[in-house]
């Protein structure tokens, strides 16, 4: 594939801004890792060797304890299973017989974000500890904070990206149409958007949340309904601008249809505006979900969520590891997203490539 020279230039420019470039790499790596989070942060073992067979519980259907010689029908507790295998080996060593050769590999963080872990000698929240492998401690219900952070991050990013896609599809479509058609259509939509922007969307969410318990999709739905407007203004302006250019006239003279002009000619030339806004929209999406969860109007418990952790942390300041973990994680992610955004804006800055007379 050959990239347009302009794109190559922009990419070089972006790479030369080290802060943004590295942030992008780190965020990309984190996102890639969260795609396989089940292998890294999970209560299910990665691989179990039992009675001569291999099992890979991570992505398979649940395996009852009985499958591995334990005496229950519910989901195997693999940490207990590990201890059980160790006992088997010790017993075999002590009696001089051959060990059954059972073993398993647990993920580095052997907890899922939902399970409650209790100790006999103390009550949660437990402080960070290497020996219990709660590297960031637990929350008030005894759930591993690192696990909740990781899965919460994945959910928040997925939420932000989906929200962004939906918002942009609607926003760009409406904005382009306003700019391209202009006239009464533009005027009516401008007024409609002005009115719609004034609906206090947080209230709407609160009202909806008091009637139904919102889930991932309803939340996205509500936020798109009240969030698509932002993009329209930029798209409208740039479409107006591009429409007046000679190449559009040329295309029209050649007999190109309106959709072709919009999709083939105008949109590609406004892409820099869209790309520039992406990181900031991601940050907005993450913050919005976190804020809603914090207020209790977001995803229902026990969904792992940063906002819920933040709420717990502020409610339990005497256990500072909760609030510290989530605040640090949130700050770092938002900071990196902002760096990426900054670098993209810099790289796409038209002043470097366009010469206006």
């Amino acid at each position, binding site marked *: 594939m050959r990239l347009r020279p302009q794109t190559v230039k922009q990419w070089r420019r972006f790479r030369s801004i080290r802060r943004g470039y590295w942030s992008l790499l780190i965020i990309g790596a984190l996102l890639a890792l969260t795609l396989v989070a089940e292998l890294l942060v999970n209560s299910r073992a990665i691989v179990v060797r039992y009675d001569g067979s291999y099992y890979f519980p991570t992505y398979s259907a*649940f395996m009852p304890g009985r499958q591995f010689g334990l005496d229950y029908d519910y989901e195997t507790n693999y940490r207990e299973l590990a201890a059980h295998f160790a006992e088997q080996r010790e017993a075999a060593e002590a009696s001089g017989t051959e060990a059954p050769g059972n073993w398993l590999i647990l993920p580095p963080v052997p907890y899922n974000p939902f399970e409650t872990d209790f100790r006999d000698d103390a009550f949660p929240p437990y402080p960070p500890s290497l020996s219990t492998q709660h590297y960031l401690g637990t929350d008030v219900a005894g759930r591993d904070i690192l696990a909740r952070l990781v899965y919460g991050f994945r959910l928040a990013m997925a939420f932000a990206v989906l929200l962004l896609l939906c918002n942009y599809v609607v926003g760009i479509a409406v904005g382009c149409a306003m700019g391209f058609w202009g006239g009464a259509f533009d005027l009516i939509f401008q007024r409609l958007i002005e009115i719609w922007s004034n609906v206090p969307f947080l209230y709407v969410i609160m*009202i909806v949340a008091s009637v139904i318990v919102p889930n991932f999709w309803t939340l996205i739905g509500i936020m798109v309904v009240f969030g698509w407007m932002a993009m329209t203004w930029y798209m409208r302006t740039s479409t107006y601008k591009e429409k007046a250019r000679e190449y559009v006239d040329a295309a029209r003279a050649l007999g190109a249809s309106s959709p072709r002009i919009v999709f083939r000619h105008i949109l590609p030339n406004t892409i820099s505006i869209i790309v520039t806004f992406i990181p900031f929209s991601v940050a907005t999406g993450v913050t919005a979900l976190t804020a809603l969860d914090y207020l209790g109007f977001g995803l229902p418990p026990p969904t792992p969520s940063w906002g819920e952790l933040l709420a717990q942390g502020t409610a339990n300041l005497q256990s500072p590891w909760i609030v510290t973990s989530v605040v640090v994680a949130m700050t770092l992610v938002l900071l990196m997203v902002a760096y990426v955004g900054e670098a993209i804006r810099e790289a796409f800055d038209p002043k470097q490539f366009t010469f206006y007379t």
Partner: protein
Amino acid sequence: MRKLALLAPLLLFGCGGSEAPPPETDTTTDDADAVTLEETRFVDLLPTYDSVPLPEGLEWVTNNEDEVFASPEAKRGGTFNTYMLGFPLTLRMVGPDSNGGFASYLRANNSVGLVAIHPNTLNFIPMLATHWAFADDGKTVYYRLRPEATWSDGLPITADDFMYTIDFMRSEHIVDPWYNNHYTNNIVAVRKHDDYTISVEGSTPKPREEILYEYGFGPTPRQFHKLDENWVVDYNWRAAPGPGPYRISHVEKGQYVTFERVDDWWGNDVKYLANRFNPDEVRITVIRDMNVAWEYFMRGELDTHPVVMPNFWHEKAVGEEFDNGYIQKIKFYTDTPQPSAGFWLNQNDPLLADHNIRLGLAHSMNIERLLTTLLRGDYERLKMHHEGYWDYTNPNIEPRPFDLDKADEYFAAAGFTTRGPDGIRVRDGQRLAFSVVYGTQEHTPRFVLLREEARKAGVELNLQLMDASAYFKQILEKQHQIASMAWSTSLTPRFWEHYHSDNAKVTQTNNITATNNPELDQLITEYEDATDKPTRVRLAHEIQQIIHDMSQFIPTWKVPYTREANWRWVRLPEWYGTRTTDVLFDFMSTANSTGLLWIDEDIKAETLAAREEGVAFDPVTITDETWRLE
């Protein structure tokens, strides 16, 4: 609805330019959303009632022998600051949405009854009635009213106000089937013998103490109400005058409600009402989060805060303010009916209609683990609905333990034999999943734990945390599957409202499990009709056994004590509370609390000054076991 209200003005604004029509003025009705404080509207139109002669030979009794339980050292005055988690949906005491948390204040203040139960001896003591007498038919009781009693607007409380209660409560305009029913089927007639003597006839003969308790009721302000089809809307935000010690003095919608003390209240010199309800003003602020409220409390902006929850008692109620004795802690054991906290299974739901599934669910709730881990052994397991009702509680009922084998057996019997790929049981593609609604964010960790444990039994519990008002609405309309809530208590078990099929078919009743069992109906009717206590006790035991067998209620925890924290200027008698105290620091007589606290302004000034200068007092943590049951 509110959403529409928000949109409407914006749309109007949008088509500005065209000239708006002049607003239509409607002079016949007031703005339904405006708050109207106590007002006497219909003093010229007071309904009056004819009197009938009093029968001869009545034996009037009263009781002024029992010890008072309020402290003679109590001082009137000051402002008591407390909070509520949500703003009430109405100021009415009956009708739709009137059963929220705020209603307890309204009831406490407006339903000073004819007689009350002494909180320590459990004997009856005079309130609005000075004397009472029983007819031989076993279902009629006569009351002699206290002539000095007045409404908070100054009008005297007379027999007509009690007569009016019946008309009022039976009216279809109040849209409240519970009260309609109670005042039609339980209380058959009220008669006026003269302006200060009434008699109440119940539907069925009962033991005397039950008659007094159950057929006793409060007056209704005739001068205030106008019953018509608009009553529910029209009176939604009107504060009624009441017979109690407080009146609502200010309502700031969504923010706070203040009560002010009726200064020359008739109860000031009545033996069992004196020295109670001491603060001159009470401000109930809406703070929608308990943890935020705690921070207000630690700053001294709230005077007291409950610390029953283990994390509050052990972890939050510590620090400088406690070490320096500015804030005190008290743990006070009581001997009283226990609120029935637990999971209420709605049998209208097709899954929960299945007896085996209800039994399986009961065995899937690992409440033992919850109590010993998260709740630190501070709470105890509740055994049943109506526990702690002294003789009436069936001593043989034990709650179902967490038992995966039994759960498996019952779920298998219901056809849920296999587990899906996520470990949740399935039957013909239907998952064994339930939504659990609850209204207290602080309870989330508890339900998270139960949820994870229930997964072991192959049950999925989907937690639904709701805003308090919406939560009550959903439950009373029987829209829930499983509701976590706690019913408050009464003197004797109330089976009819919770379990009779009459209340299963209609919404806005307390039969939130939609229990419809003919055998149970029969026993409940017998229980309601029984006259002697031994029979009632026997029937109560039988009914409780059936309810336990049906397993529509999964009891969770009980707390046979109250734990509270208070700034040291909030004072209590030297005996702190009473045998049946629910909340020590309660300014009114809500539930079984008795409004014993007072604010000592001198100590307040002293404490605030000491805090400013960093001077410490002795830390105070009180544990009182006077009323502890072994």
